[in-house]
């Protein structure tokens, strides 16, 4: 990736933010979410702000544009190319600074055609809005610049385009008035791997051709390192480190940044265990006095917790907010983590066997003739982009979706045949259980955590359900106290663990995980992946792991199936498939993952 040379003469920074604090109404009075944020971007430079959810990075972006939602207040100075934005920056928005938002499916006005969205802000020299024909012509030109060659798209409606297309339209609309700074708030999180790399490449190209400053907000370190020159790392509402991008994954000096980088699963090898970060991000209002990361930091000392820590400059554009910055802490980095040598694939008897299974929704063929097996004690990964049919395969295995044709046997019982009686389903249920993707809706909001698990235990003949529930919670690393909490009081990671505990309540032979970690922060993801590996070892259950993230599947699966548009294009040992892919699609998938150290 091109790292940008420092601009020759010290032109005023395209964007300079200092002392920016955002408060939101909390229980008693206004509670700060982000404090004393500072950042500068030179024209044409790409800078990233990285942080996990709850770090305040997204609200900072909104504060810069003064687009805070109802009820939030902000203070501090924001300057575009030297002049202060002041309280009413409306004049600046669009012309000087613009934004691309995260979820392409809700960013565009559903009732407007694409050409009207793109050219809405354009004016003729004498200030009038463009006529219909000029709007259409201008839209086609601008869409071409963001990589949409087909002129028909200009007349289409947003709901007729794919996620990637809509994001391109969003970008075209945002840069319509040649802004100095473009803020991209998690622009690719909602997209597939291949589309993600295309959009990032597009943003990079636009930055160069238009000498536009790019501020990329993301939770993905690899994306940040791959696209930007400098990175600000935020944690619990504070900037804790600023460093050049190439040092992010290898030479971070703040413990949190190092552990965060390490927790990111590598693609090329499988680690014994991913180094997790214990505990969870402190919520605004409940933040510790001293260094905010102290409670979770392995190297914390009394100095860290006594008084607030200030930034110290290490030169070459590298600043750290850590009390022990002087000492050289032995921060382990990804490259020196112990690798596990992949043992031979365990050869237990097959539990779930799929032969020529197809699944049709109306006129759309989701799954087209898939063969698949899961053996006892084995961990199988299914990888594919959205729309590849991997989730449909999972749902058929667990009986949530009927099979259109082909055979699907679970411990000898063919679920496709009509005469699967009550006890037939009972054995299927006790053989395979499922954990779901969205942490916020995987648990019943009206029930306590303990209630959910004891309710599921009702189907087993466990004598003392409460004790068994506590035991299950222990098994997934949560203490018994969690039993009487409500799902709303839990973090995303904790909710997924409870979901796994619920699945284990039926002590199944196979645990089916459908994108279980894709909605979690990297550090939390590490926890859950380690938990799943431990459960495999201790309980001897087999895993079916469905994900779109190749690096994650590398860490958990023995064998891997790669699916595209309803077909299995390649399958084999994880090591072979991921390091020496034979099918061109697998190769392009692997290539689209941003390079890393």
């Amino acid at each position, binding site marked *: 990736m091109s790292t940008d040379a420092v601009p020759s003469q010290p032109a005023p920074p395209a964007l300079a933010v200092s002392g920016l604090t955002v408060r939101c109404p909390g229980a008693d009075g206004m509670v700060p979410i982000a404090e004393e944020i500072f950042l500068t971007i030179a024209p044409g430079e790409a800078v990233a702000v990285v942080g996990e959810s709850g770090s305040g990075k997204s609200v900072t972006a909104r504060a810069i544009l003064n687009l805070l939602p109802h009820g939030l207040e902000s203070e501090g100075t924001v300057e575009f190319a030297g002049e202060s934005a002041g309280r009413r920056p409306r004049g600046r928005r669009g012309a000087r600074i613009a934004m691309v938002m*995260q979820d392409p499916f809700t960013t565009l006005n559903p009732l407007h055609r694409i050409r009207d969205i793109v050219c809405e802000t354009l004016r003729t020299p004498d200030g009038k809005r463009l006529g219909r024909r000029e709007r259409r012509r201008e839209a086609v030109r601008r869409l071409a610049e963001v990589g949409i060659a087909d002129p028909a798209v200009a007349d289409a409606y947003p709901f007729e385009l794919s996620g990637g297309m809509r994001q391109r339209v969003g970008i075209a609309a945002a840069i319509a008035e040649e802004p100095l700074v473009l803020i991209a708030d998690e622009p690719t999180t909602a997209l597939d791997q291949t589309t993600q790399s295309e959009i990032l490449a597009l943003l990079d190209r636009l930055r160069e051709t238009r000498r536009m400053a790019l501020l990329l907000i993301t939770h993905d370190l690899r994306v940040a390192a791959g696209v930007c020159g400098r990175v600000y790392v935020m944690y619990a509402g504070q900037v804790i480190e600023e460093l050049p991008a190439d040092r992010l994954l290898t030479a971070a000096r703040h413990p949190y940044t190092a552990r965060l980088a390490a927790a990111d699963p590598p693609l090329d090898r499988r680690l014994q265990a991913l180094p997790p970060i214990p505990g969870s991000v402190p919520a605004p209002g409940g933040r510790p006095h001293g260094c905010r990361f102290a409670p979770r930091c392995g190297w914390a000392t009394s100095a860290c917790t006594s008084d607030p820590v200030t930034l110290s400059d290490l030169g070459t554009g590298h600043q750290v907010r850590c009390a022990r910055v002087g000492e050289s802490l032995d921060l382990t980095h990804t490259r020196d983590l112990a690798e596990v040598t992949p043992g031979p694939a365990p050869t237990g008897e097959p539990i779930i066997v799929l032969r020529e299974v197809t699944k049709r929704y109306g006129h759309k063929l989701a799954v087209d003739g898939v063969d698949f097996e899961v053996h006892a004690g084995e961990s199988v990964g299914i990888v594919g982009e959205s729309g590849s049919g991997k989730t449909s395969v999972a749902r058929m295995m667990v009986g949530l979706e009927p099979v259109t044709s082909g055979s699907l046997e679970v411990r000898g019982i063919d679920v496709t045949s009509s005469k699967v009686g009550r006890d037939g389903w009972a054995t299927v249920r006790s053989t395979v259980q499922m954990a779901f993707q969205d942490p916020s809706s995987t648990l019943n*909001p009206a029930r306590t955590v303990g209630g959910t698990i004891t309710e599921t235990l009702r189907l087993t003949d466990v004598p003392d359900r409460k004790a068994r529930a506590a035991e299950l919670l222990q098994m997934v690393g949560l203490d018994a106290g969690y039993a009487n909490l409500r799902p709303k009081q839990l973090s995303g990671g904790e909710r997924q663990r409870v979901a796994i505990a619920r699945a284990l309540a*039926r002590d199944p032979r196979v645990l089916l995980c459908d994108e279980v970690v894709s909605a979690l922060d990297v550090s939390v993801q590490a926890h859950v992946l380690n938990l799943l590996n431990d459960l495999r070892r201790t309980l001897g259950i087999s895993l079916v792991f469905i994900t779109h993230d190749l690096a994650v599947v590398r860490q958990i699966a023995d064998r891997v199936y790669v699916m595209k548009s309803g077909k299995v294009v390649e399958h084999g040992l994880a090591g072979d498939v991921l390091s020496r892919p034979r099918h061109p699609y697998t190769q392009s998938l692997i290539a689209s993952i941003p390079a890393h150290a």
Partner: protein
Amino acid sequence: MADRPVTLSRHTWRTLRARRRQTPLLVVAASCVLVAAAVLMIFPGVAPHDPDLIDGAVAFQSPGSQYWLGTDNLGRDVFSRIVAGTRTGLLGPLILAIGTTLLATLVAVVAGYLGGHVDALTGRVIDVLYAVPPMVVAIVVVGITGGGWWIALAVLLVFGLPINIRLLRSAVIVRARLPYIEAARTSGFSGTRIMVFHLLPTIAAFLVAVFFLTFTYGIVDLSALSFLGLGVPPGASDWGRMIAENRAYLFQNAWATIGPTIAVVLVAVSANVVGDWIYSRYESRGRTR
């Protein structure tokens, strides 16, 4: 099935914004009114006079120490009749609200969860009932059959169902597809168990909303019906009927009409206010984000 990966929970600070909403004064006042009305309903004996005592000699007394709101055309004490009127004023709407909530929930949960032809059939039936305004049907049915109070209630109940079923059904359909319900299905729970113990608790807020909305419309519609002389027997101390009977004597004793009107409005407003407040407090529990 487009299984696009779910985005990170977008703005965690939004969940912080649920400020601790202190109960506003208006809601406290409204609940006092409702409690007072309920007490009067249970102990009508509290009223200063016998509401049905007819005494021609004291007809049309204006409000004074003995008769707080004066007397009506037959010399009955207006205040006592308003107190006695709480029976039909509150009981009717209460029965209507409970009946509608139970029936609408039953139909909505079953149709919403099972889907398929059951849902399609319910949809058709709702379209039929939806096409006929409840008040017109009530007037025609009660008018023709000379039916009493119970028939009026039954008609309003049946024709009040469609709107509420639609409201609950859309809430159920959304929740029936969420992971925690699918998890219950994969765990092997029976359909009924899922509907009652898993689905129902999450739409509790909507049940409250339906209950209070029907209660308020019950007050308004039932008093309108008795205003037209349908439902409650003549001479009964029912607010709607009192308003209808005493409107002709607006000049002798205006309070005989204004009194019950204020009673109807007060109870209806209080029910509305309390209903909205409970709904907003409850609603956050049902939501997943």
